[in-house]
């Protein structure tokens, strides 16, 4: 009889343990929730990019429009006013108003920093959801900048073309925002670190408003990206993402 009671208690314990594990989120669920916050379908934004290179600081301002796979960035600061970048699917074009020249950025040019920043052109080209590109595993939990975070590791999904083979992410446990991300080459070399400095609740989603990107292959450089205003799901004219509109 005692043996039976013992077995029953064990069974109850196991059931309870299982339920407790089921309540924990899987890595995929965490990233999915993060994508829900950070992935943008359609948006228009005003932003500022501060490029710091040693003691030199350059500020560039821009307005941008995004719709699914397409994006348009128009620089508005005096020096670069009228410079535009257009992304259509997997293609990226740049327009310089002074030269009135349309340039397609491709091949190894995509590895260069956009307008001298720590963001490469390739970085702005990847617009797919992270869950579509990487297989994530949950490494554990850590506190970062006073916030409890999940620590996840994403490895490029087989057959997917991704820039970074591995990424390590610190995702807020409550707000599901990535506070920090380390991007690695296939060799294991740390290439870039992106940190979110400020987030804001816009409607029902949390969104990163200030980010800092550091290229770890260069010293004393970083790029701050500050979103001044953002509107989700605005009406964007159909001809916004055309080459004709770029000129």
């Amino acid at each position, binding site marked *: 009889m005692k043996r039976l009671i013992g077995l029953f208690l064990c069974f109850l314990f196991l059931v309870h343990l299982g339920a407790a594990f089921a309540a924990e989120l899987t890595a995929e669920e965490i990233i999915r929730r993060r994508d829900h916050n950070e992935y943008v379908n359609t948006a228009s934004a005003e932003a500022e990019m501060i490029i710091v290179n040693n003691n030199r600081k350059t500020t560039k301002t821009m307005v941008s429009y995004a719709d699914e796979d397409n994006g348009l960035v128009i620089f508005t600061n005096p020096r670069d006013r009228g410079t535009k970048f257009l992304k259509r699917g997997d293609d990226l074009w740049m327009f310089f108003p002074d030269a009135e020249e349309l340039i397609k950025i491709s*091949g*190894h040019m995509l*590895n260069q920093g956009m307008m001298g920043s720590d963001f490469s052109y390739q970085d702005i080209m990847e617009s797919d959801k992270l869950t579509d590109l990487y297989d994530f595993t949950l490494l554990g939990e850590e506190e970062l900048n006073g916030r409890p975070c999940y620590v996840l590791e994403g490895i490029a999904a087989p057959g997917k*073309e*991704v820039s970074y083979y591995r990424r390590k992410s610190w995702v807020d446990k409550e707000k599901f925002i990535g506070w920090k991300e380390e991007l690695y*080459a*296939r*060799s294991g070399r740390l290439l870039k670190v992106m940190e979110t400095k400020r987030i804001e609740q816009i409607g029902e989603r949390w969104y990163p408003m200030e980010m800092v990107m550091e290229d770890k*292959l*260069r010293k004393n450089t970083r790029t701050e990206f500050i979103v001044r205003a953002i509107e989700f799901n605005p009406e964007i004219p159909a001809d916004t993402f055309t080459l004709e509109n770029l000129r």
Partner: protein
Amino acid sequence: MFLTKLALKNLIRHRNRTLITACIIAAAVFLYLIFDSLIAGMTDMSYDTLIDYETGHLQIVHRDYWAEEEKLPLEDLLSLEELATLSQVDGEVARSPELAFPARLSNGMNELPVVGKGIIPDEFLRIFPLEDKFVAGSMFALGEYKAVMGKRLADLLDLQVGDFITLLVRDKNETFNTIEAEIGGLIHTINANVNQNVVYVPLDIAGHALAVPEKVSKVIIKLEDKNGAPRIAREIEARLPAKIGAYPWNELEAITFAGAKNAGIMVMTTILLVIAAIAIVNTVILAALERMGEIGMMKAMGLQEKELIYLFVTESVGIGILGGLAGVLLGLIGVALLVRIGIDWSAQTGVDMSSFGIPVLGTMYGSWNPLAFLRIFCFSLIVSFFASIPPAYWAAAKDPIEAIEYR
């Protein structure tokens, strides 16, 4: 006949004028020949520079890769295993596989875009004479995480032998990867591209990092005689699958680009010719104007217009022959000196000319071009002939009294 004799007598009679005009023509002819010789010498050197340090005499490349070569793709590569079946061809000295890729070279502080080349060192050195071009260190061995680059490139990033570099590359799947390597050697050649833009790493290390093991972009072949390249290319193509092509050195993009640059130089030569022509025309016209009084006198004595024109043109052509011959003679001496002794620009200017992409390290030599001698001699005759017609017409049409009192 009388007029021809008169024209010749006139040439001797007005000795000073004849000599001065002929000297101007001779100077133009001489300058052209020297310039042409230097350009031809530089062209030969630039071809040799490309062949000796970049292209070899012949390249075996996948045809689809050939069309996209500028982008250095990792598609349409050749399999080393497949190429091993291609036996040596007649006239072949050596062959070397190469895997070329775009990369960003980082010293941990800054980055520069470069072209990475994965090579098999022993085979590479049999084609490209780099052994004596090392200014520090030496060539790596296969499997070693080492790199060789131009001294100029190393200077730009403040690198020395023994320092570590990172090459940031994108592999076949477009994923970033890095090649971490120690600088094994620094070279300095007369090829500015090799000095400034290329980083050599072992082929196996590059293949692994780019996720294309045992694959190469091309196989470079060195021949006993570069002129045999087109024939041997056809022979090799006959033994290869249709998708793979064999391209002789004169069809390679770098060479045709160098050829295009030379076409630009030929434009400059043409401008030089035009300037020479203007100088000749000017001298002939002035000589005609100077003889207005004489023309009036001859006309007054009963010489017809066409006879006057004939006289003028014959004299002018005579001066052209004299000047042309003198220029050609001077040119022969000048070009012979250029071919034998050359010009040491760096000694003259104290500047390494290869810094400007001019493929010259040390002395620059001229080259013989018999066609140029013939061309410029005919040119001086034709210009003298045509330059004399308008002033002759103009002077012959004048009233004898007006012509006599022209001054």
